[in-house]
Structures are given as C-alpha cells and as structure tokens.
C-alpha cells in the first residue's frame, strides 16, 4: 500500500491536470519524473504589464514525507530579482511556506500565491536587500528597470539555465 503522501500527491496531480486551463500564470506544474511524486517542478509566467512580463520562471518543489502536515520546500531555479527571493539560492520568503503554512494548501494554490508575490513584493522582510531598498526608497522606476534587466537576462528566451 502506498503511503499517504503519495496518495495525496496523486490526487493533486489529477486535480492540476483538470484545472490546467484556469490558471493563466502557471504554465506548468508536474512531477519531474512520473515515478517520483515527491519532486515537482513548475513554471510561472510573468504577468503582463509587470516588470516580469515575458519571463518564464522555473520552480523546484520538494515534498517532505509528512506533507501536507509540513510545507513543501520551494525555490526558484531561474534567477529572479525580487525582494523576497534570494538571488543566489532561489529561496523564497513567503509566510505561507513557513509559519503560516496550513495543510489545506495545495501545490497549486501555493504556486498561485508565489505568482502573486511577484507583483506584490513585501520589502519589509527581504532576502534580496538591493531590490528591497530600491522599493523602500520609493524608486519604483529604478526597481522596475532592474527587474526587467534580470528578467531579460535570465528568464526570457529558451534558456533553461540554472
């Protein structure tokens, strides 16, 4: 008999496939290999009219064996300039991935939350101080052009480099 986490992941997988059309900013969400349901990947699309427009951002998702009691570990594989994402490691600072995690979340809803974090940064708890400082100083134009540059550099085109 497969373990509880596998059964839950299987269900999430089926639900994701069913809802595929309803999430414009989530291009992909699937296990990296069909036989390992504890390691997923996702691709977020930068929202139109934002500095991330045109970018494709890859996420690496690791599911702990006591998921969903414990939260998944998610990081950006694609380099991204964002106040709440560590530029080098891709670590994400998002309350629902840490203290505010609840088992009622799914990978899908978490990815949607990360996607909305892109356009709603939280500069008060930064992992990327340079980006956060620009925002805190109110230099939106500078922030936006910085983001645009990194998006063009790392997230646009077919480069999947890590």
């Amino acid at each position: 008999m497969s373990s509880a986490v596998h059964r839950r992941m299987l269900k999430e997988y089926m639900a994701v496939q069913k809802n595929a059309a309803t999430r414009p900013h989530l291009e992909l969400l699937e296990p990296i290999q069909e036989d390992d349901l504890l390691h997923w990947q996702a691709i977020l699309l930068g929202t139109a009219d934002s500095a991330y427009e045109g970018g494709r951002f890859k996420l690496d998702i690791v599911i702990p064996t006591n998921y969903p009691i414990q939260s998944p570990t998610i990081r950006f594989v694609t380099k991204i300039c964002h106040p709440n994402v560590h530029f080098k490691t891709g670590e994400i600072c998002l309350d629902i991935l840490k203290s505010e995690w609840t088992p009622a979340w799914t990978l899908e809803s978490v990815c949607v939350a990360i996607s909305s974090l892109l356009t709603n940064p939280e500069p008060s708890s930064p992992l990327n101080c340079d980006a956060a400082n620009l925002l805190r100083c109110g230099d939106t134009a500078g922030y936006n052009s910085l983001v645009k540059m990194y998006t063009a550099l790392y997230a646009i085109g077919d480069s999947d480099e890590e």
Partner: protein
Amino acid sequence: MTAEQHKLRGNEFFKAKDLDQAIHEYSTAIVKDPKVAVYYQNRANCYLKLEKYTSVVSDCERVVELDKKSVKGYYFMGKAHLELGQPSEAYSLLKKSYELALEQRSAFTKDIVAIIAEAKKQRWIEQERRRISQVSETYRYLSGLIEQDIQRQVDALDRGSFDYQDYLTDLRSDKEERLKELEAMTQRAGIPDDYVRPYIERKKSTTNNNNGVISPEASPDPSSAMDINQEPYKKPILAPAAPREVPDHLLDKITFELMHDPVISMKSGISYERNTLLEHFSYGRMFDPVAQVPMTERDIIPNRALKEACEDFLTKNGWAVDY
C-alpha cells in the same frame, strides 16, 4: 529463569529477526506463566510475520481473553482474518481495536485506520462478487470453474510437507488474481448474458418441446413467449462504467482521502479526519487548517452524520478505499 526473562530474551530474538527462536522463548514464558497477555501477543506478532495466520488468531483469542482492552490483540487478530480472506470478521475486530486505541490515546491509530480501510475494501470486493454472480450466469459458471480448479490443487497438496503453508498462500493469491481478471472481463464485456441468454433460452425451449419438428426461430414456442410476458426481461445490472469519483464533502481536507472517523471543528464547522487533524496539532499548530482560526483538540466533536455518509458510500463503492 523466570517467565519474564524468557520474554525479554524472546524480544531480543524478535529484534534480531530470529522469529523461530523468539517463538520458542515466548512459548517457554507461556508455559511458566500462562496468565500474561503480552506473551501471547508477542508470539502472535511473530506468527503474523511468518504468515501463520491461524496461529495468530488462536494466540490473539487468548490475548483478548486475558486483557479485554488489548489494542494489539484485536489488531493482530483483525490483520490475520484479513489475510485469511475473512474481511467481515477482520473489520469488526479492527474497529474494536481502533476504539480502544482512541481511548488509550495510542499512537497506533494510524496503522489501524489503514488496515480498516483495506478490510472495508476486501469486504466490498466480496460483496461485489456476490452481486455480479447473481446477475451474470456466465460469471457464476466461470468463477465456479476457477474455484474448483484451485480446490483440486489444494487437495493435491501434501499436508505434511513443510512448505504446505507457502503453497497454500500461492494458490490463494493465484485464485484472487484469476477471479479479478474474470471480473474485469465481465465488466468490460458489459452484459455478456445478453449474448448468452438467447442460446440458453433456445436450448430450454427446444428441450421443452422435445418434438424437434418446429424450430424455435420459425415459430416461437408459446410457453417461452409466456415466460417473457410473465417475467419481463430483466436486464442484468452490472457496475456501470461511471467515473469513479468520491464527492468532495466526504474527503478529508488534509489527506484528500475518504474519511473514516470525521470530527467537526466547533470553531468553523469544517470536518477533518481525526488522525490527520491531531497530527497537525502535534506540530504545535493550534489552528483550524482551512478556516485558520485558533483551535485545539478540545474544539472537536465526532461528526456522526458524516461518518454514516462515508460508511454508506464505502459500502456501495469499495474501490473508494484506494481513491
């Protein structure tokens, strides 16, 4: 050496996976002091690992006789009955075990719930077979042949041989496999009796007439026509190829599985499976997972109506265990 010392030695053998030696020590302990439930219980666990299920049952009967509140006694016995192909007995024993485990706040409940689910599924498969065989003559005929064949092979086995039990287990799983295959075929074919029935009817009518002059096609036999009038042609109801889905309201919000012991949060009115919710609390997260309002173990009560709904659904849809 005292009985207790023999038990301890048995435990060491058990840890070292030397089950035969462990059984020997436990048996010695039992001889020295036949009134201790744990000795039987430990020996039953060894038998369980050795797949000697009838021995498990008899030891466990002793266990629950000596200790009416033994979670493991009922648990091992239920497991053995399940392996012996008696899911209904297994189910009631495991249910008892679960209740005791809850009472004693044992960490064991999770394992029990998993086995209960398996017992429910086996029970459903058994009922489903009975139903199909009532409906389908073809199935009844073919499954009968399988049973006969297996029985012949069982009879041919040498009872004295030391791997008799192994052969028996092999044959049993062989039978299961073949029955499952036949079942799948019956379902895939939809209603095979529809094709078979005309031949059966024709055979009946020609033998009834017994004159062989009038062929049934040319002039339908009045008696068989009357049969049809009296008993309107009943279409066998086989399981329809409906999508196998469990309604969301019967699923635990955390594991997404059909609930077995749903409890309702008095803070939000949302229901969860007792085990998973308690596990959530055990991480120090004292809030309602969905509503995200503060909540503790004291804020839950059993949701009996939902439990009935889940059980009812499962009785009719045994596959839902694996959903």
